[in-house]
C-alpha cells in the first residue's frame, strides 16, 4: 500500500518528534556520557572592563579531581579569533575576539580561565580557587556616550564606532530624496524609541561534548547551525574540515540564541585536542545569561513626513545599535536585516536608513527571533499610530490609505525589495471581525466617558517581514560571507521506505513531521514510511541550517525538487518496465500507470527494480536516490494584522491583555497545528518584550538580570489565550507557496501591545512609555500627567474619531 487517501500537505498531523520528548527518551547534548570524559568549567570575569594583571591557578590545580587549569595565555597561540561572518562595510572596525580573554576583559561574563576535572562538581569547586587580579578600566555602557570616544572599549581601534551602514532610496533609485520630502511635508513627526536589550532564553542551556577518538573530532553541540559551526571551527582551529564532525542532537530551542559559534564550543574542542580525551561543558542558566549573546538593544530615531490627508511621503531612520564588546557571527548585520523593513507595507516615496553600530562593555548582541525586523516593525507601527494621533485620524484608516493594495503586487518597495504577494485588506478584515473592532471602540469610549479606573486600549500592528533567508546573490551584495541556499536528499530504500536528509537543523520546529508530510504527498508513500535525518554533518553533509524563518521556504523547496528528481527517474524506469512511451505514464497516489490501461507499477516496484538493476534502460544508473539544492530568487513576505486589547489599571499601572487576535498570512500551510504553535510562541516572546523582559546592567557593567528570578520570561499566568486565524496568499517564490512563520508572532506583537497600552492612556496625557511597560513604568507615566483641562487631555487618544486633531 503506497496510496495516501488525502493530501498530506495541509493536514494537522501530530508530530513524530513528540514520542521521545513526552517520555524523556531524548538526546540532549548534556545527556551524553563518554568513557574517560572530562568536564570543563569556565571562570568568568566579574568586571566589565579591566586588564588582567595576574592569574594564580596553583591552588585550583592542586584540588581533587582537577586535571588542568588553563588561561587565555595558554591558548593565545591557537585560539585565533571567533568568526564574524558579516563585515557590513569595507571599513568596519572588527576587534580580535578571543574565545578566552588574553590580558584584558571587555565584558562581565567573558571567559578568563578553564578548569578541566573528572566531574562537573570538582571543576566548579576549583573555579573558586583561581585568583585573578584585575586592574579596572573605565566602563563604556551608554551608546551615545560611547560615540564621544572619551573611553574606549578597544583602545587599539581608536574609536567605539564599529561601522555606519546607509541605504538611501534616492541613491538606490528606488524612491525620492527623503530630505526633500521632509522639507516639503505638511506634517513631520519625529520620535525616538528604545529597543531594550533582550536575552533569547532558550530553555535548554548550551552544552558541548567533544570526542577525539577514532581519528576524528566529533562535536556535539546544542546549536542551530551544525554545518556553519563545522566550517567555522575548522577555519578557526585549522583542524581539517573533513576531520571534524558536528552533531546537533535534540536541541531545546534557539530563537537565534544558538545561531552562534561560541567561545565554549571552540574551547571544548581545543581542550579535547590538548588532553586527547572527551570533554563536556554544560552551562548554568546564569552563565547562559552572562555569556550567550543577547538581542535587540537599539536606539531608533525616526522621522516621518506626511500630508495632512494622512498620506505618508518620507521615512528617515537613524539607528544606534549596540554590538556589545565583540562581533559574533552575524552581530553587525542584525540591524541591517531591519533596513529593508521599516517602510513595511506602506508606500513611502522616500526612505533613508542610517545605522551606526557601537561597541560597549556588554555581552555581544546577535540574532534573536526576528533579528532586525521586530525593531523595524515596532518603529513603523508606533509611527503610524503617532501620525494618526497627530492628524486625529482613525489608526486603522491611516494604515489602509497607505498600504500596498492587493492588486498592486508584485510591488517594488522604496527599500529596494520586491514583495511578491499579499493581501493586507483580507487579513485586516478578518482580524477586525474576530476582534470585534467596532464594539471594542465603543467599550473604550464608554470607559473614557465614565472615567473608569481600568481603561481600555486597542493596539494595531499591520506587519510584514522578509523571510526565507536568503537569495545567495543578495547575501553576497550585503557582504555576508555565506550563501542562503538549502539542500535535501531523498534515499529510496529497497523495501520502499524513504530516508530524507535535510540541511535544515530543527530545534523545536517539527521538521521531522512536516518534511515527512511533504515527501508523503509528493511520492505517495505513507507518512510513517519516511524518516528525516538532520543535524549530523556525517549524514547530512551539506546545509545552511535553521534561522530566519527559512527552513520550509528554502529547505522544504529543496526537498520538493529532490522528490521531483526521484519521480522523473522513476517515470523513465516505469515506462521501461511497462514497455510504453514515457509520455503515456501517469503518476498518482504512489503508482505509475499506462494511460488508458490497467498496467500499473507501484513506486516501490520501480524503486526495487532500480536497486537490483537487473534491467535498466540504456545508460541509467542503479538506484533511485536524488539530491537537490535550492537557492531562492527572492525572499518571502509573510504579513498579517494583529489586534490587541489591553486593560490598564490607572491606579496600579498593571496591564492585562484582555483580547489578542492574530491573523497571519504565511502562505500555503503544510501543517496548521504546527503553524498555530509557532504563532503562539512568537506572540509570547513579542508580548514579553512589550511588557516583561529587559536585560539591565548596573553602572559597573554587571548584568543585574542574570537569573530567571530577575529576567522575566513570562509564565502561563502572565499571558492571555490568543485568537489566531489565517488568510492565505501563496508565495510565488517557491513551489510550496510557503512564506515562513517562525518569527511572525514576535515581529507583529510587540507594537500591537505597546500601541494598545498607549491608546488606553493617551487621553490621560501619556505620550510614551519605554519597554518593558512594567506596572511601575506605566504608573510613573500616569503620575506625570498634566492637570485636567489642558489641551493634552482634550486631544483624545487613538480611535477618538471626534478628536479635534493635533497634539502638541
Amino acid at each position, binding site marked *: 500500500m503506497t496510496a495516501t487517501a488525502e493530501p498530506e500537505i495541509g493536514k494537522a498531523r501530530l508530530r513524530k518528534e513528540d514520542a521521545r520528548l513526552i517520555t524523556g527518551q531524548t538526546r540532549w547534548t548534556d545527556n551524553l556520557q563518554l568513557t574517560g570524559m572530562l568536564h570543563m568549567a569556565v571562570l568568568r570575569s566579574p568586571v566589565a572592563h579591566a586588564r588582567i594583571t595576574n592569574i594564580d591557578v596553583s591552588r585550583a590545580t592542586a584540588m581533587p579531581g582537577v586535571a588542568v587549569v588553563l588561561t587565555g595565555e595558554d591558548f593565545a597561540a591557537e585560539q585565533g579569533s571567533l568568526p564574524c561572518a558579516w563585515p557590513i562595510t569595507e571599513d568596519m572596525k572588527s576587534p580580535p575576539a578571543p574565545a578566552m580573554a588574553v590580558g584584558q576583559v571587555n565584558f562581565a561574563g567573558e571567559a578568563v580561565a578553564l578548569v578541566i576535572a573528572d566531574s562537573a562538581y570538582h571543576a566548579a569547586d576549583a573555579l573558586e580557587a583561581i585568583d585573578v587580579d584585575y586592574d579596572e578600566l573605565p566602563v563604556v555602557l551608554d551608546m551615545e556616550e560611547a560615540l564621544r570616544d572619551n573611553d574606549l572599549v578597544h583602545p587599539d581601534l581608536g574609536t567605539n564606532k564599529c561601522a555606519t551602514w546607509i541605504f538611501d532610496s534616492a541613491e538606490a533609485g528606488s524612491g525620492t530624496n527623503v530630505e526633500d520630502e521632509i522639507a516639503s511635508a505638511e506634517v513631520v513627526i519625529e520620535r525616538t524609541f528604545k529597543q531594550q536589550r533582550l536575552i533569547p532564553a532558550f*530553555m535548554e542551556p548550551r552544552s558541548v561534548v567533544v570526542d577525539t577518538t577514532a581519528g576524528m573530532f566529533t562535536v556535539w553541540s546544542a546549536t542551530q547551525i551544525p554545518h556553519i559551526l563545522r566550517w567555522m571551527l575548522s577555519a578557526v582551529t585549522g583542524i581539517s574540515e573533513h576531520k571534524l564532525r558536528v552533531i546537533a542532537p535534540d536541541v531545546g530551542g534557539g530563537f537565534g540564541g544558538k545561531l552562534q559559534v561560541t567561545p565554549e564550543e571552540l574551547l571544548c574542542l581545543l581542550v579535547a585536542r590538548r588532553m586527547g580525551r572527551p570533554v563536556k561543558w554544560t552551562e548554568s542558566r546564569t552563565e547562559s545569561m552572562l555569556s550567550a549573546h543577547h538581542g535587540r538593544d537599539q536606539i531608533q530615531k525616526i522621522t516621518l513626513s506626511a500630508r495632512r490627508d494622512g498620506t505618508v511621503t518620507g521615512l528617515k531612520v537613524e539607528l544606534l545599535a549596540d554590538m556589545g564588546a565583540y562581533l559574533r557571527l552575524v552581530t553587525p548585520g542584525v540591524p541591517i536585516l531591519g533596513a529593508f523593513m521599516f517602510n513595511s507595507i506602506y508606500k513611502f516615496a522616500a526612505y533613508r536608513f542610517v545605522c551606526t553600530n557601537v561597541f560597549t562593555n556588554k555581552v555581544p548582541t546577535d540574532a534573536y527571533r526576528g533579528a532586525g525586523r521586530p525593531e523595524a516593525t515596532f518603529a513603523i507601527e508606533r509611527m503610524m499610530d503617532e501620525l494618526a494621533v497627530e492628524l486625529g485620524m482613525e489608526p486603522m484608516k491611516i494604515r489602509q490609505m497607505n498600504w500596498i493594495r492587493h492588486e498592486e503586487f508584485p510591488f517594488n518597495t522604496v527599500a529596494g525589495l520586491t514583495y511578491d504577494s499579499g493581501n493586507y485588506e483580507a487579513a485586516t478584515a478578518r482580524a477586525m471581525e474576530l476582534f470585534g473592532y467596532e464594539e471594542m471602540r465603543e467599550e473604550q469610549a464608554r470607559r473614557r466617558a465614565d472615567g473608569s479606573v481600568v481603561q481600555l486600549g486597542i493596539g494595531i500592528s499591520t506587519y510584514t517581514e522578509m523571510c526565507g533567508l536568503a537569495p545567495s546573490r543578495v547575501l553576497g551584495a550585503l557582504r555576508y560571507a555565506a550563501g542562503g541556499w538549502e539542500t535535501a536528499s531523498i534515499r529510496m530504500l529497497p523495501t520502499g521506505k524513504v530516508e530524507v536528509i535535510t540541511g535544515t537543523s530543527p530545534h*523545536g520546529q517539527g521538521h521531522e513531521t512536516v518534511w515527512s508530510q511533504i515527501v508523503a504527498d509528493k511520492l505517495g508513500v505513507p507518512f510513517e514510511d519516511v524518516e528525516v535525518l538532520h543535524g549530523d554533518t556525517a549524514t547530512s553533509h551539506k546545509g545552511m541550517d535553521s534561522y530566519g524563518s527559512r527552513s520550509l521556504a528554502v529547505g522544504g523547496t529543496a526537498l520538493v525538487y529532490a522528490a521531483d528528481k526521484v519521480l522523473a527517474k522513476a517515470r523513465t524506469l516505469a515506462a521501461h518496465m511497462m514497455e510504453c512511451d514515457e509520455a503515456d505514464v501517469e503518476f498518482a497516489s504512489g503508482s505509475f500507470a499506462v494511460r488508458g490501461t490497467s498496467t500499473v507499477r507501484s513506486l516501490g516496484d520501480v524503486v526495487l527494480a532500480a536497486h537490483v538493476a537487473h534491467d535498466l534502460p540504456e545508460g541509467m544508473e542503479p538506484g533511485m536516490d536524488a539530491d537537490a539544492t535550492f537557492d531562492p530568487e527572492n525572499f518571502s513576505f509573510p504579513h498579517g494584522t494583529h489586534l490587541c486589547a489591553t486593560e490598564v489599571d490607572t491606579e496600579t499601572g498593571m496591564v492585562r491583555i484582555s483580547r489578542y487576535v492574530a491573523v497571519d498570512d504565511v502562505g500555503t500551510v503544510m501543517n496548521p497545528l504546527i503553524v498555530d504553535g509557532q504563532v*503562539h510562541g512568537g506572540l509570547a516572546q513579542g508580548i514579553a518584550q512589550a511588557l516583561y523582559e529587559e536585560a539591565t546592567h548596573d553602572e559597573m557593567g554587571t548584568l543585574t538580570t542574570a537569573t530567571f528570578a530577575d529576567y522575566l520570561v513570562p509564565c502561563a499566568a502572565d499571558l492571555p489565550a490568543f485568537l489566531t486565524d489565517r488568510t492565505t496568499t501563496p508565495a510565488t517564490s517557491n513551489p510550496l507557496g510557503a512564506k515562513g512563520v517562525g518569527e511572525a508572532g514576535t515581529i507583529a506583537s510587540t507594537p500591537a501591545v505597546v500601541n494598545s497600552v498607549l491608546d488606553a492612556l493617551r487621553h490621560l496625557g501619556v505620550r510614551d512609555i519605554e519597554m518593558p511597560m512594567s506596572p511601575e513604568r506605566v504608573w510613573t507615566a500616569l503620575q506625570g500627567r498634566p492637570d485636567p483641562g489642558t489641551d493634552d487631555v482634550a486631544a483624545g487618544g487613538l480611535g477618538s474619531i471626534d478628536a479635534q486633531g493635533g497634539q502638541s
Partner: protein
Amino acid sequence: MHISVNVDGMTYADEVEPRLLLVHYLRERLSKTGTVVGCDTGNCGACTVHLDGHSVKSCQMLAVQANGHEVTTIEGLARDGKLHPVQEAFRSNHALQCGFCTPGMIMQAIDLLADESDPDDEAVRKGLEGNLCRCTGYQNIVRAVQDAAQRMKPGAGPKQEQHSDEHIAATQPVGGE
C-alpha cells in the same frame, strides 16, 4: 552518605556526597536523563519530578533528602507500554515544540490535576506558574491539561489509564518548593 531511593519503581542504594542535587543524582548516577536542568534558581521547573506523589523541583533538593522516598520521573509514567493520559494529551494538543520543558511541565500538570480534577483556564495557568516554556506561549499546554482532565475523568477510559500516584504510600514531601 548512604541513601536508598525508589525511582520509577526500582530501588537504588548508593553512596552520595551530601551536596549532590537530586537532579544530578537522577541524571548522572541513574542515567534518568529524561529529567533535565533548565536553571539554577528553581524558577523554570524543567527538573520537576514527583516525590511520594507530589511535584518537587529536583534541582532544589539534595539526593540525600530523597532517602527512603519514592521518586517518579517522566520516564516512569508510562505503564505497561501505555502513556499516561497527560502525556497523550500533550502530544494530541501539540503542547510541546522543543520539548525541553515538557518533562517538568507534564509532571507538574499531573500534580495540578491531582489537586483539581477539572481546572478552568485560569487554574491551569496558575497551577503551572512555576514552569517556564519558551516555545508554545502556553496556549496548547493549557489546552492539553484541560484535555487530560477529561481523559482522566472516571468513566472516560480504561481503569489503568486513570493513572495517578495514589498507589504510592502517602508520606510527607520533603524539600522542594
